[in-house]
């Protein structure tokens, strides 16, 4: 079985939580007790029974009838294990949306057939594109509320296609599914009301997802150095590619070269380690530190002092000339906002201003970052080392991706 991370995005009240609740319920992943608990809560709060209550667990969420924070739930179909993530559809909770979406392999964009494209539909689309989530399904929900009419589905579909194209997604390659999360149409089973739709149900579409496994050059990030049996052991994670015992490697920014003597795990040794593996590495030399990255001598990590990135701001404001902390992999460096090239509206993706002095909360921007020597890679090449967060006063206030390394304007 394959593990697939799915995130549901879209505007508030377009039915994301209801859709996930329905998926869980129809896949028989909900415990009996939870169903009873929800029925009791519905009575207590004088609401009708809602599938969304399986997800919205805070008292405030139930009272306010909206999702505040992201939640991930697990279920399995006949083919895959799914971790499915619900995110809030309000602008004020974008921070939580990003937290939820950052690990997704696939996104399902939920759009209400009644309302069509709305503000957060656009903003979530923009953010998905920035996060590099390229596999998308579109679900046109609440078809029951528009009497399952094909015409309405087509109208909304056209509207969304236009939006997708404007964000550089190829709309004609994307599957659109008319559903009713409330009634369960075209989610786990087909729909009697929509016999005109001959395509896949949502679960069929998800079951056919493929996760690309293209081989990348090896990168290993150093978390720490431990002394194990009297020997310095460099612990960390293989972020991309594969490393083998005997590989000739180079660490940056420390510049140390060496040959892998051993790949260690507790109680044993490995001959090779793959993407995602957390292991210990020994070499002859010392001096390696947390934040270092190693690669093979023939494809070494790139050191940069200035790069072009695209970022979205969750803090109050970010000014040109300001210094803050930037984190990428396990590296933590001081960085200066050297230049803000373009301030971008995170709802429409349009450039609002060139060379502004500052940007505000929820704005996106292309920024030239000047940093202490740091290993970053182009997001398009090695995403694991091409994404970063911005930290101010110990708080994560922004996130972005690397467009170009060693960038001097």
């Amino acid at each position, binding site marked *: 079985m394959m*593990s697939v991370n799915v995130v549901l995005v879209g505007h508030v009240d377009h039915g994301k939580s209801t859709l996930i609740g329905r998926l869980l319920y129809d896949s*028989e992943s909900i*415990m*009996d*007790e*939870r169903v009873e*608990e929800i029925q*009791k*809560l519905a009575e*207590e709060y004088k609401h009708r029974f809602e599938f969304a209550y*399986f997800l919205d*667990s*805070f*008292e*405030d969420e139930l009272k306010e009838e909206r999702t*505040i*924070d*992201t*939640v*991930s*739930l*697990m279920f399995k179909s006949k083919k895959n*294990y799914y*971790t499915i993530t619900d995110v809030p559809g309000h602008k004020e909770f974008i*921070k*939580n949306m*990003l*937290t939820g979406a*950052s*690990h997704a392999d696939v996104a399902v964009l939920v759009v209400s057939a009644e309302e069509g494209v709305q503000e957060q539909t656009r903003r979530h689309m923009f953010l998905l594109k920035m996060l590099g989530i390229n596999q998308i399904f579109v679900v046109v929900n609440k078809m029951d509320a528009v009497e399952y009419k094909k015409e309405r589905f087509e109208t909304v579909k056209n509207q969304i296609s236009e939006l997708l194209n404007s964000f550089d997604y190829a709309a004609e390659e994307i599957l659109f599914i008319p559903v009713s999360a409330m009634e369960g149409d075209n989610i786990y089973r087909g729909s009697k009301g929509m016999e005109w739709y001959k395509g896949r149900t949502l679960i069929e579409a998800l079951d056919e997802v493929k996760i690309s496994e293209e081989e990348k050059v090896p990168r290993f990030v150093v*978390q*720490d150095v*431990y002394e*194990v*049996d009297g020997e310095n*052991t460099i*612990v960390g*994670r293989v972020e991309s590619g594969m490393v083998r015992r005997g590989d000739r490697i180079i660490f940056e920014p420390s510049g140390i070269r060496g040959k892998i003597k051993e790949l*260690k*795990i*507790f*109680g044993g040794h490995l001959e090779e380690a793959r993407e*995602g*593996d*957390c292991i*210990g590495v020994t070499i002859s030399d010392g001096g390696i530190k*947390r934040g270092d990255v190693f690669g093979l001598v023939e494809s070494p990590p790139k050191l940069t002092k200035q790069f072009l990135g695209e970022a979205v701001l*969750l803090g109050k404001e970010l000014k040109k000339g300001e210094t803050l902390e930037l984190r990428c992999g*396990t590296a933590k460096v001081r960085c200066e906002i050297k230049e803000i090239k373009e301030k971008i509206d995170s709802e429409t993706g349009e450039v609002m201003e060139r060379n502004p002095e500052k940007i505000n909360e929820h704005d996106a921007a292309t920024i030239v970052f000047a940093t202490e020597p740091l290993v970053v890679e182009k997001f398009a090449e090695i995403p*694991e080392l091409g*994404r*970063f*967060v911005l*930290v101010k*006063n*110990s*708080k*994560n*206030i922004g*996130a972005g991706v690397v467009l170009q390394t060693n960038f001097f304007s």
Partner: protein
Amino acid sequence: MGLKELENKSIYIIREAYAEFDNPAILWSTGKDSTTALALCRKAFFGEIPFPVIHIDTGYKFTQMYEFRDRIADEWGLDLIIARNEEAMNAGMGPEKGKLECCTALKTEALMQCLDKHGFDALFLAIRRDEHGIRAKERVFSPRDEAFRWNYRDQPLEMWDQYQAQGEDQSETDGTILIHTRVHPILHWRELDIWEYIKRENNIPVNPMYFANDGKRYRSLGCEPCTSPIDSNAKTIDEIVEELRTTKIAERSGRAQDKEKAFMMQKLRALGYM
């Protein structure tokens, strides 16, 4: 996620927290989840856990839990700290005084006293998303203020394994005093994963209370007065795995404190409960 992926992610989190914090500790209830978390720490640090292990003792735990605790602490050479709210225990605190009150005094307050005494800035906790809706909303690194409060309405941005390890300088910037950060290394595991992992590893100790005796077994361990067994004939790890693949009964169905009233768990957790 497969077991290897789950394990890798946990080890990554454990090593991140150890690198970021000065004085961490791990909570150990002796149950299956926190014992698995200890086993993962042993892997992360090649056998020796470099920080203390806290057991919160309410005085109401099952005898088998105390026996198990002492045996494993000895076998694994743990630096064990036993946290007890002696004052409340002497004053006769018990579940009959109210479950919220009892859990708060004997668990949450006992832990507060322990943190005060030792000055821990990070606590590893073996909670899992699939245990309870409220726990599903947690971050991997989750800050708590001086009164142990969880500000669930304003949780940190946590993307791409960039966990926010807030330092003490926080107090200077917005007035909140951060006492400690909760670190959740097995948040992404399911109950079934835990048992499949225990089966695969074949060396993680399991409290015998989890195995069926006279048609009953404990699925989740807590204090004796507030924990009941479920109907089950699962006598081995394999049988437990099999049972969990098909069950529709919730894991914490035998835990009384969760269900006294609606949102009990949220209320407990907002007060600093684990």
